[in-house]
């Protein structure tokens, strides 16, 4: 199975158990999630031939739940992008908006679900990489609380920020998939037991998708609407009206800290990436040998050849931000900003059940448009990155379309381990 919109990098089928909650479902898996015996490229030429000898914990759980994995989906190289155009295997096109990007970096996962080529999919979300493509492709995506889902086997881009999240046509299906992958894993020390935070039925996400928003209190951070596209804003307010009509109410929230989220996010993510991607040096991955010079020069050559432009620039910027003399000015400052963002969003969530905003401030870009202007692409992450910095859960649900028929997503952010709140609220819309 291949797709004309280039949703898959590899289409080798992986069969799951013959029994389980997902026995009739196909679940596509983003290509930065390790699959034993099936190559896992991260959308990079560096890992073109890399075949993991082990399954990621989430893949083990999919298999145990009876899911069939139809293939590994296309993505921005190592997750570094918002459009799925930086993949070494070519860009993915938005299957529901011809000529437009599907969002990223889990663009392949959202695209195959939107096109009906997989029932559901797993993506990873470091700064919006599940929610952005869900919004652009008109499907549902959940970014879980940091520490809800195991990252074991997920190739790290920025390990303090990312989580594996489900993408599905409906909130209920996304909730069901989340239920399968969530929960403690002895191989990932950062996963916590949600029942300790939320009681015995903490993982009953499917049951939470009941659409009951009566009495729901929504906070709306106005900073996330300021720079948004007008058509997007219009669809957003229509969706809020819809929720109000179903018994919810809203109030405006002022979160000054959010203006610094994109910078704090990129400094943090790039710094971590510079370290996480250091292992790809040509010895065991990528093109090794054949170069003249000492090992240091050989490493440099292998990295120059194996990585794409966006990856190289993020590694360089991250290395810079961590370097002596700049560490305090960039990395440390970003961590301070992160603490500030965390604190203020949590405060806002003391006065609201969920926070709402457009998932993306813009409708899907035309293909090729943002490659020329990376800063514009980075700014498109303004609404999604604060959630990762604050370790919180968020869902993107389809809110409607622009006048040109382009999908718009609504983002709902909940408190830590408050997946059920955002699933309940989101299920009132999709």
């Amino acid at each position, binding site marked *: 199975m291949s797709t004309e919109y280039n949703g898959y990098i590899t289409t080798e089928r992986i069969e799951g158990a013959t029994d389980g909650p997902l026995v009739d479902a196909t679940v596509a898996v983003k290509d*930065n*999630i*390790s699959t034993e015996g099936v190559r*896992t490229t*991260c959308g990079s030429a560096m*890992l073109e031939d*890399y075949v*993991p*000898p*082990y399954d*990621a914990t989430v893949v083990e759980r999919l298999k145990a739940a009876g899911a069939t994995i139809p293939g590994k989906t296309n993505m921005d190289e190592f997750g570094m992008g918002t459009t799925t155009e930086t993949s070494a295997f070519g860009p993915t096109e938005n299957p529901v908006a011809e000529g437009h990007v599907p969002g990223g970096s889990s663009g392949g996962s959202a695209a195959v679900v939107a096109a009906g080529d997989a029932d559901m999919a797993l993506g990873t979300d470091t700064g919006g990489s599940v929610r952005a493509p869900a919004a652009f492709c008109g499907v549902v995506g959940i970014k879980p609380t940091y520490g809800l889902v195991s*990252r*074991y*086997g*997920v*190739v*790290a881009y920025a*390990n*303090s920020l990312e989580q594996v999240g489900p993408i599905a046509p409906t909130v209920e299906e996304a909730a069901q998939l989340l239920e399968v992958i969530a929960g403690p894993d*002895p*191989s*990932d*020390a*950062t996963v916590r037991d949600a029942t300790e935070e939320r009681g015995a039925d903490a993982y009953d996400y499917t049951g939470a998708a009941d659409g009951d928003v009566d009495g729901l209190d929504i906070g709306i951070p106005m900073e996330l609407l300021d720079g948004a596209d007008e058509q997007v804003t219009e669809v957003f307010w229509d969706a809020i009206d819809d929720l109000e009509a179903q018994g919810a109410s809203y109030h405006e929230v002022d979160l000054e800290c959010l203006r610094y989220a994109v910078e704090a996010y990129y400094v943090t993510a790039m*710094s*971590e990436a*510079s*370290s996480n991607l*250091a*292992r790809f*040096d040509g*010895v065991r*991955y990528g093109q090794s040998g054949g170069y003249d010079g*000492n*090992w*240091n020069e050989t*490493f440099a050559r292998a990295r120059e050849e194996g990585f794409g432009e966006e990856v190289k620039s993020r590694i360089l910027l991250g*290395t810079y931000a*961590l*370097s*002596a003399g700049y*560490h305090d000015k960039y*990395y440390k400052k970003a961590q301070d900003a992160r603490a500030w963002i965390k604190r203020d969003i949590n405060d806002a969530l003391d006065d609201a059940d969920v926070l709402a905003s457009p998932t993306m401030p813009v409708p899907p870009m035309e293909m090729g448009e943002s490659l020329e202007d990376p800063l514009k692409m980075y700014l498109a992450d303004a609404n999604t990155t604060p959630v990762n910095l604050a370790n919180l859960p968020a869902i993107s649900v389809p809110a409607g379309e622009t006048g040109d028929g382009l999908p718009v997503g609504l983002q709902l952010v909940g408190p830590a381990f408050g997946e059920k709140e955002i699933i309940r609220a989101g299920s009132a819309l999709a």
Partner: protein
Amino acid sequence: MTAQAVETEDLATVIGLEVHVQLETDTKIFCSCSTDVGDDEPNTHTCPVCLGLPGALPVLNEGAVEAAVKVGKAIDATIPEETTFHRKNYYYPDLPKNFQITQYGAPICQEGELEFSVEGERRAVDVRRAHLEEDPGSLQHKGGSIDTADYTLVDYNRAGTPLMEIVTKPDFRAPSEVRAFLAKLTEVLEYLGIFDATRDGSLRVDANLSIVDGSEVAEDGAVDRDVLEDANRTEVKNISSHKGAEKALAYEETRQKNAIQRGRVVEQETRHWDESKGVTLSMRSKEEEKDYRYFREADLPVLRVSDWKERIDIPELPDARRERFRTEYGLDDESADKLTSTKEVADFFEDVAEQFDPGLAATWVADELLGELNYRDMQIADVSGRFDEIERLVELVATDEITTKNARETVLREMLDDGDSPDDIVEREGLGKTSGDEIQSAVVEAIDENPDAVEDYHDGEGGAINFLVGQVMQKTGGSADPGDVNQLLRDELEG
């Protein structure tokens, strides 16, 4: 120090150490691979975590933290409320991830102290910090050094072995002090049961040495920080033993003093100790300050250890045990030192002392056993599986079944050389002390068979009794006591 000729006598040596010790745990620090690698095939003790495969995550082995807390207690260090891990970023072919997980801001041990004796004097050196980290893999360069080899092989068996890096203040004033400190440190680590000195690479030392003007050293040995910063220092790497540390630093001390004496400037550089040639060599690398870009390892949550110091017990340490041996068993200093040299020796001694007499136990463990082991270049660990047999030997002596001389000169030596049991050796060599009846009949026989000698005895010839004793000794295969025989003969002849 400025470049002008100075008399050697006016110079003082300042040394600080970074000691890496492998902690003995069953499994590696961040995965469940066994650390018992031995001579196993390369890359057979590996998994996605210690290979640094994409997506693999570290999970902290709390056993390694416990071992580190034991060290902290032994050196009276502060154990913090919380401890965290950082990444130290640098590229090197033995590093699976091209970063090392280590500790930076909140090491497990802070501000400790270790006391030791050197040339009869007590010294104490401050330990600035001691932290946990992962060992890299090991490299084999084929056909040269890392710069010139045709190719290099990487073995990740060692990768992830828990390491503790112990950083001292620059408190050492002589290479001999460093040696004594290292001996004491490894002794303590062995007592704690977390260190195996016989494991290859279990101890690795980097030493910083600088020479300052003798007048800058205060009465208590302290040297001002600014003075140290002004002095150019060399970092000597690749030291792997106590003796090697003393030799390398003595070489480096002389080299630097000679340079200063001749008015030359000591280069601030890293030097490599070449054990076989007995020299330190410049590593010729540009001496730029390395930037490791440390930052928090988010994959390992903060570990609360505030109550660990209380919760974790450590055994009696060598100094305390030595003192107790002196008072409890009445041992002299030399025996007490010998018997507490390792925990295994001390434990064995106490076991033997409990069953027999402490004095006899001290003689047999400190003098006989350790002496014979030393002569054979063997360690106590080489016979730890045979403690039962050695106890049996002491029992044979204690119950007078064999003579001390035979026990020492024949049985123990053959036990160590041939691996036989003491009872087998006694039987094979016919060393069992002959019973009184047998000696008595031999006495009677000797008198009957040698009437001439009997007559000589009665005529008062002194040599006659010695001849008869000789006859009896022959008949009993030398296992009778000559003094006893002499008395029995006299009794018989006079009776």
